[in-house]
């Protein structure tokens, strides 16, 4: 039966010698195909005696298996080699830069608006808005600024030309007129926060003709100055994201509140930058007070039944303090480099649970 050994040796050698799938297939057909040599030997089994078959059957089957295995193994080898060759051709230079994507940014003032809204939102303040162009009533008279009083002068008001004999409209000098609009339309209890643009005719290193304020108003039964102090002290600590920051309330004057106050927050100025919550210095943050009974009356609310407090703060300055912008003027210059530097990524949404910044 040297035939078997010869055929096996020749077949395995031929398989090993193939260089590609097509050549391998030729060898497979020549050995294992219907007319192949191994198949021919298998066919001889039919003409053998039972004893011979008993002996030759396993041998021939083993031959067939070994040749088939060798073909399969060689096929894998050849395919791997072909893939390697193909991959070698497909190499990318991944040191090349991808297509650039512009990096967007949110303006710090707009972000700080949202931070403030998140803090007060947690205390139940709903957001309200009003128009930038106001009438004299909402901006001054209803807020208890007597006509011709010097308190009006301090506001450096922008006026429009009077139209049709009506008093000149103004650009609102504060967000407080929205207090009036809300109280005129909404029965108490009221708990609102008013963000917005405000305008004063003043332009120098520390003033811009347009800036941003947030106004707050709480009207209910039994709301007193202790609530004001608690609410705003909590705000200061949460806004500056410090564990402790002492606050100080000082008497002040605003026509639309009585009593009126300003709130200072503890800070340290010794290192050049302002650090809130440390040191022995004080920094003025906001004005506030109990809503003046005249203002409540002007809005049709009985000051003997309802009372409450209001506050207002300059958002641009708060943003400067918190994030260390040295100068107010670039806020309104729309310089993309400045905004990318001091601004915020779009996915940073201020929230009480996730942190403000």
């Amino acid at each position, binding site marked *: 039966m040297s035939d078997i050994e010869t055929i096996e040796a020749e077949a395995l050698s031929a398989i090993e010698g193939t260089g590609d799938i097509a050549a391998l297939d030729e060898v497979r057909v020549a050995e294992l195909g219907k007319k192949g040599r191994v198949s021919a030997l298998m066919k001889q089994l039919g003409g053998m005696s039972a004893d011979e078959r008993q002996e030759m059957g396993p041998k021939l089957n083993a031959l067939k298996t070994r040749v088939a295995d060798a073909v399969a193994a060689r096929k894998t080898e050849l395919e791997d080699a072909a893939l390697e060759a193909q991959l070698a051709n497909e190499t990318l230079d991944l040191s090349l*830069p991808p297509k*650039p994507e*512009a*990096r*967007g940014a*949110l*303006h710090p003032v*707009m972000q700080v608006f949202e931070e403030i809204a998140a803090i007060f*939102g947690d205390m*139940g*303040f*709903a*957001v309200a808005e009003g128009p*930038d*162009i*106001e009438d004299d009533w909402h901006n001054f008279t209803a807020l208890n600024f007597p006509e*011709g009083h*010097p308190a009006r*002068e301090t506001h450096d008001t*922008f006026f*429009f030309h009077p*139209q049709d004999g009506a008093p*000149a*409209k103004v650009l609102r000098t504060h967000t407080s007129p929205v207090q009036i609009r809300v109280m005129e339309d909404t029965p108490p*209890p009221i*708990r609102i*926060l008013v963000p917005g*643009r405000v305008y004063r*005719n*003043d332009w120098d290193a520390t003033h811009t003709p*347009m800036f941003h304020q947030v106004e707050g108003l709480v009207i209910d039964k*039994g*709301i*007193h*100055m*202790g609530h004001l*102090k*608690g*609410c705003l002290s*909590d705000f200061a600590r949460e806004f500056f994201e410090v564990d402790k920051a002492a606050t*100080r*309330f*000082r*008497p*002040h*004057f605003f*026509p639309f509140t*009585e*009593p*009126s106050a300003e709130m200072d927050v503890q800070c340290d100025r010794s290192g050049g930058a302002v650090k809130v919550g440390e040191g022995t210095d004080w920094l003025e943050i906001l004005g506030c007070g*109990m809503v003046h*009974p005249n203002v409540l009356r002007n809005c049709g609310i009985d000051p003997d039944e309802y*009372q409450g407090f209001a506050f207002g703060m300059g958002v641009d300055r708060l943003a400067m303090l918190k994030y260390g912008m040295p100068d107010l003027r670039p*806020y309104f*210059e*729309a*310089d*993309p*480099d400045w*905004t990318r530097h001091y601004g915020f990524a779009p996915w940073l949404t201020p929230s009480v649970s996730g942190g403000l910044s």
Partner: protein
Amino acid sequence: MKFTLSWLEEHLATKADRDDILAYMMKAGLEVEEAVTPAEKLSAFTVAKVREAVPHPDADKLRICTVDTIEGEKQIVCGAPNARAGMSAIYAPLGTYIPGADFSLDKKPRKIRGVESHGMLCSAKELEAGDDHDGIIELTEYFEVGTPAATALGQTDTVIDFEVTPNRPDWLGVAGIARDLAAAGAGRYVAKEPKPIEGSYDCPIAVEIGAPEACPIFTGLMITGVKNGPSPEWMQTRLKAVGIQPKSLLVDVTNYISLDRARPLHAFDAAKLNGPVVPRLGKAGEKLEALDGKTYEITEDMCVITDRSGVIGLGGVMGGESTAVSDETTDIFLESAWFDPLRTARTGRTTGIVSDARYRFERGVDPSSCLDGLYLAARIIVEHCGGEVSRPVIAGDPPAPHEKVTFHTEDVARLTGLDVKPADMKKMLKALGCKIEDAGTTWYIVPPSWRFDIDQSADFVEEVARLTGYDALEETPLPPLPGGRKALATPLQQRVRTARRTLASRGFVEAVTWSFMARDNAALFAGGANAVPPALTVANPVASELDQMRPSILGNLAQATQRATDHGAREVKLFEAGPVYLGDGAKDQRTMVAALVRPVSARHWQGAESYDAYAAKADLFAVLDALGQPPERFQIGEHKASHFHPGQAAALKLGPKVTVAHFGALHPRVLKAMDLDGPMIAFELNLNALPQMKVKPGKTKPLFEKADLTPIRRDLAFVVSRETPAGELLRLARGAEKALISSADIFDVYAGPGIDEDKKSVAFEITIQPRGDTLKDADIDAVMKKVIGAVEKGTGGSLRA
């Protein structure tokens, strides 16, 4: 308002030191802006005596002085020409900071031309004690060696500057400050009410009231035979300390009384007066040459002081040149009156005059202080300038005194939460000058004549609260609101937030620009000069290029982009979410989201795309999508916006009437007019114009239904006229069988050989999504037939063969 501590102590008996006083001021609401104590910066300097002064061997102008100092004998090299033996001078030891020169002496002795110098003798300028820098200070009075320099120089006082709020004109006098601080617990108020002057003769100058509504009371007196001269040292020191240059006593005394008592006075040279002095309303055509050297046109609204010669002063604002006192004045007529605050304020605004008198009268001067003012001034004048004082003349009556105001003592606790004993309240209010009629928990109180800010119970609450101190207020958390938690931002604000974050995530940088712009530029965005509403022109703009409320944000963004480009930026992508103004009514403001790109195609090895109108459309659609506004709800139509390119921009509409947005290229005419480097691609979206999406009750979402049948895709191409908007084909195709067609997308637009010249071919793919039942071939054919029919009918085109 500036004052000095020693001045304050004339009206306030106190043991409080400087820091205590500052704390009491803070507590009472007097906001300190600055407190300067020269003694602090002079603490290292002391009196020394020059025992010997010999010329320096190697320098003509230097002397070697042997000086007795607090630290013993020192050798000091001095360059001052007046350094000489026997003089008393001010000595600075080594290492001392010299405030007027802003440097510190070396800590070790320095050799000057070979001779060691152990410290310095100082000039007035080096100590900020004067301007003299020609030589060192020579003390004329005797002081022991080692006496603090501040004592020797009379600079122990502290100058305090604080903000006077408009409600407290009584703080414009040092006496008023003392009264408030005493009420706050700083000490005892020392009332220095002047004794009336009897007067030895009748005042020869008559006074009459010409307009009681403008000047209800006018008083005066005459002093004859005065000899004007410099004011006494103590008055000069005080005036200088608060920044007023002393001139002569007759001028200084009125300034002093104004600062000391918040009581403006005016001194006329009686020899220059002509007949009775009458305050009355002005007449058109009258003029006044005022003390500031300027001539003012008088109006009928002004209160003028007159004599027979005409207008000689603006009541409560400024006196006139024609009757001014001078060094030669011997007889003076002193005026003390009360002028209506509002009229004084108007006159001040009209004339632009800023004076101490105006500042006080427009805020309110104590009407009961007229005669006291005269007596105070007359006593000082007679003491220093001599003269005979007349009996006062009085015309008119002071305005009606304050009426009783009701104070409910329980309002203190109700409005502040403070627990203050009624006895303490009474003490505070009395200290402020209130006259109290106690009727249990309700008090009837006459406020003091110098206060104009007390007319209801809450005003007393403020007084009690501030004098108790706001530190006593107890921090109290706000009570929880009833009801559940809802979104607290308005739907519009939610839109603004979402739009901003969408654009920032797509590479845009947020801008915040002025709400105003140049009127000429506004015209470009409003549709011409006639379309700029005059009602939106600012009457007093901060700058001429910021005089019009903006009709669009894009002008400001374009200018900002140009600035960035000029600065070397490549592609700039800016956006702003903010207001634009259609009119001056409360409902004429719109919230827009505007974005602008100056495309610069960045060269890239993979090839680069340039931002164009289609990219703007994609960004706009992304914003709409984020806002829950499916873009396919809107129609693309021709625009009428004059600032957009006529052919490369479009309007996004909701029905025929509502324009929601514009997008595309800015008009080249706008670019040219504003000197901008184009092209600029932009969009602006009116957030107010978007419909409110229906709010479904509850928070559960509809059940998810997976389309388990495979979608069928078919390509179609039509030949239509060139003018037909391609988007119209999609709209028609989608609308042909809404239930089954889930999408339609154009993949080819072709015009050229093979197609008629005035036509184009538009090819698109429709996706048919079977739901429920499998579609048979016949069903699909039916859909295709509907689509073809609808497109052919709608466009007049035909299926491409």
